[in-house]
């Protein structure tokens, strides 16, 4: 049926995905996919892939999968950023047409926040939280795998939009009514809403999982005030996720219904109220930015204490401040729409509540500085990122406080001043923190260190490039340049600063290339970590060998001190002293299962079907979802036993067993 074929071609490959660059990428992807399939077949790796990775429920492997996806997404988001900067370098250029520019900034923002930063954070959670609290796994290992696969298939759904059907183009905030059918008839926004709903379900499950893990799975003796700061950060972040994602889900679902089922929540006509979307979105969105930064506050607290070789300064108040940030962050969301005329009372209230957040945040900054004070600072790459974080984040936070000054925000809202503000906190806080954590815990995850020298080159390129990119953007804001302009006229004085900014972005890109080189080189030739404790660490994960055995702890430790491992080392104890053969019992471990993967895949099918309104496909996917739920509802056989002897042998071979 030729009409059917033309219909397919028109829906799946409309002109907006037929640009030469995208066709080139298509070709690359096809070649890459064939290559990958070929490689896996030739080396007989399919079974291995399925058994060891796709069906795994081991938090350490899930961490690795999160990490890989996050770095791939950093690459994609980074390429998008480079394209944006290329377009903006000169006034009135048409490197990309408007529609494509719009798609690119949308995917840049969405990918960086939802598909780069979030999974990267979860990679760190998964990699270390059970180890830090002395547990064998997270509270719900299967749910953990489901979270990952929901995230992964959400990400895939979002990413295929640029080769099939066209990408969303309404910004990462997707304000209606522009996302309505009247203005945006293509499938792009459907992709956006569906992908975020699917990934968001996964994220909510991760939030529940790690909240329960940190409150119920801690080793005996680890009371709240003995938890490492990163565990606190995880707990608080998980709580934030729990409280923040529901409004997002609701807002997205309502927008989607407007598009697919003709409801009128946010439409131009029939009394729709677009501002309600904005309200709900930021009810999520503001806590979200703290979801993006609080885990890294935890990372920094660990890194700074380890590399200053000194206890964290002011631990109790660090806890108080992190809790204060959590509470306050639910009361500030209106600062993203001061200019929607909610009246002076509302604006003043939310302006003040926003400023209040600066106080607990400042407390953390000062406590970190005073952790270094009187220590012995070792300049490793992880520490360098932490040290770059402080000045960068303080300046970003300061510009945030300027935005919280309501009348100033009337002028600065949605200008490049805002863009500079949030890249300052998001790169300075989130990205630097993620990289710091990655360098810090890499030995624990992979059993080898990342090369420090290469890491430093990457760091300096990133750091310097960052300042060159974003400092000029503050000035552009003062010159009145608004965001999301695909091009701008000459004569407003915006040109020179944009050129500088673009150059900076290239330097950051170079930094990323070095980073990738660093990772690949180290995987091949990196220095093995045989001690399990390469940095002279303080918390329990460093008491384990690297990489960590499947069961984590042969015997669950009993905690007495805040920095338990450090205290043990001070007292001259190690694990080998502690563990006798009769201490080792059978260990119960969760069993691998294909359900999470299949569940994610089913949701992908649902999402894809709904994006194009191909209901039969969506229904097939839905049946898959139901089958997965039913199967896991009736499945009582979800763990297996590891014999004590096997554990003893493993521990003995690592030299960790007495006698």
């Amino acid at each position, binding site marked *: 049926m030729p009409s059917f074929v033309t219909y397919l071609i028109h829906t799946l490959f409309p002109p907006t995905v037929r640009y030469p660059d995208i066709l080139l990428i298509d070709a690359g992807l096809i070649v890459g996919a064939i290559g990958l399939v070929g490689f896996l077949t030739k080396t007989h790796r399919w079974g291995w892939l399925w058994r060891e990775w796709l069906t795994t429920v081991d938090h350490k492997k899930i961490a690795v999968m999160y990490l890989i996806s996050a770095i791939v997404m950093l690459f994609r988001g980074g390429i998008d950023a480079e394209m944006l900067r290329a377009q903006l370098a000169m006034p009135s250029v048409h490197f990309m047409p408007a529609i494509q520019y*719009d798609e690119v900034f949308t995917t840049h923002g969405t990918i960086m926040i939802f598909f780069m930063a979030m999974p990267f954070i979860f990679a760190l959670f998964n990699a270390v939280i059970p180890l830090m609290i002395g547990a064998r796994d997270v509270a719900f290992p299967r749910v953990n795998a489901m979270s990952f696969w929901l995230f992964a298939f959400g990400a895939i759904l979002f990413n295929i939009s640029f080769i099939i059907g066209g990408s969303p183009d309404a910004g990462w905030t997707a*304000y209606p009514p*522009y996302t309505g059918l009247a*203005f945006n008839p293509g499938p792009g926004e459907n992709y956006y809403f569906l992908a975020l709903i699917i990934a968001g379900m996964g994220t909510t499950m991760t939030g529940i999982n790690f909240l329960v893990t940190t409150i119920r799975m801690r080793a005996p003796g680890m009371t709240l005030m003995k938890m490492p700061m990163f565990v606190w950060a995880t707990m608080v972040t998980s709580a934030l996720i729990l409280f923040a994602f529901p409004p997002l889900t609701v807002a997205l679902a309502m927008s989607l219904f407007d598009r697919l089922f003709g409801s009128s929540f946010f439409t*131009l006509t*029939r*009394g*729709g109220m*677009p501002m309600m979307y904005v309200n709900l979105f930021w009810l999520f969105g503001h806590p979200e930015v703290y979801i993006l930064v609080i885990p890294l506050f935890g990372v920094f607290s660990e890194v700074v204490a380890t590399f200053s070789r*000194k206890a*964290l300064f*002011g*631990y*109790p*108040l660090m806890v108080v401040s992190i809790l204060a940030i959590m509470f306050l962050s639910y009361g500030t969301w209106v600062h993203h729409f001061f*200019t929607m*005329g909610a009246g002076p009372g509302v604006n*003043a209230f939310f302006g*003040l509540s926003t*400023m209040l957040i*600066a*106080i607990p945040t*400042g407390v953390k900054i*000062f406590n970190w*500085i*005073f952790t270094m*004070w*009187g220590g*012995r*600072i070792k*300049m490793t790459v992880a520490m360098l990122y932490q040290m770059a974080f402080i*000045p960068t984040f*303080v*300046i970003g936070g300061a*510009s945030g*406080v*300027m935005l919280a*000054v*309501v*009348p*100033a925000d*009337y*002028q*600065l*809202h*949605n200008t490049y001043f805002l863009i500079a503000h949030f890249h300052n906190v998001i790169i300075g806080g989130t990205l630097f923190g993620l990289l710091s954590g990655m360098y810090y815990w890499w030995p624990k995850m992979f059993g080898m260190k990342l090369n420090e*020298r290469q890491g430093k080159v990457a760091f300096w390129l990133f*750091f*310097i490039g960052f*300042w060159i990119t974003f400092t*000029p953007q*503050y*000035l552009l804001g*003062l*010159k*009145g340049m608004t*965001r999301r*302009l*695909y091009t701008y006229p000459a004569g407003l*004085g915006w040109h020179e600063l944009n050129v500088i900014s673009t150059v900076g972005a290239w330097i950051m890109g170079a930094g990323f290339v070095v980073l990738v080189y660093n990772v690949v080189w180290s995987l091949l030739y990196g220095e093995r970590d045989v001690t399990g404790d390469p940095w002279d660490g303080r918390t329990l994960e460093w008491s384990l060998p690297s990489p960590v055995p499947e069961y984590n702890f042969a015997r669950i430790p009993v905690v007495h001190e805040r920095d338990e491992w450090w205290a043990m080392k001070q007292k001259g104890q190690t694990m080998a002293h502690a563990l006798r053969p009769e201490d080792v019992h059978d260990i119960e471990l969760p069993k691998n299962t294909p359900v999470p993967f299949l569940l994610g895949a089913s949701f992908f099918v649902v999402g894809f079907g709904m994006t194009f309104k191909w209901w039969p496909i969506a229904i097939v996917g839905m049946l898959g979802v139901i089958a997965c739920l039913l199967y896991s509802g009736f499945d009582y056989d979800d763990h297996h036993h590891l014999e004590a002897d096997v554990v003893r042998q493993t521990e003995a071979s690592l030299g960790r067993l007495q006698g």
Partner: protein
Amino acid sequence: MRPAFFKRPYRKLVPLALAAGLLSTGCGQQYVLLHPVGPVGQQELHLMELAAIAMGIVILVVFTLYFYAIIRFRDKPGNTAPYRPDWHGSKWLEILWWVLPAVLLTVIAIPTVKTTYALDHVPKGKDPIVIDVTSLTWKWLFEYPGQHVAAVNQLVIPTGKPVLFELTADSPMNTFWIPALGGMEYTMPNRVLPLWLQANKPGTYIGLSGQYSGTGFAKMFFHVKAVSPAAFNAWVAKTRKTASPMTMAVYDQLLKHNTTGQALYSSYPKDTFPTVANGFTLTGSGMYMVMRDKNDITYMPMQNP
């Protein structure tokens, strides 16, 4: 082991210095936000300056402590700085950094609240001229209910007199922004928002949108001509005489999704804007009745018709 450039952490200051240089040598009037020509922009600028100074203090303090710490306490052989691995807190220091930022924030918070309230209304005793602004898909429609003229993508206002803009949209949301005069405000469908601005100096200023609304968004620039009241009246009279009237057909034309140039109209159909006198009936779904008294707009929720 350590690369040479690493020895000098001050390197980080270079881009900052560069930026400061740019700002001082830079390009005069092009920093629009720093050179407002009206009272609204000026008040906003004052707050920005105040906040910037406060933030400067914060940054200075943090940077001093920070650089001192990282230079003094490096782990290098022969470092004589005291090493206190178990120093984990100090009551007084911690009280200090809960209290000092709070004080500093109070200093900016008070004028923030004051100005927020002040900017909400046209100052008492001044009679504003009202302009109805509708953002359309990638163009601006300005209607003068007092003068009965209309314009597309260009705006003429008298100097020395507050202008009360009533903002709405028959399109996705945009923000109405004239940086030289003062801050922006959203244009939203089904809703009318007030914004007042004033130009004290005659001149031509740039206006634009701050909220992305589609492919033509980058073309939503418009010109604002501030002229003396006499010249303004002359302009109105001339427009009435020479321009053609805007009919409903013209309005429908404007509703198309495209970008256009500038245009003037000698009159406009009553219900294109929820006119102040008639109450608000945009696209068939009234949300609010708009009642105008001298300085302000009151909104009455409209029950179903």
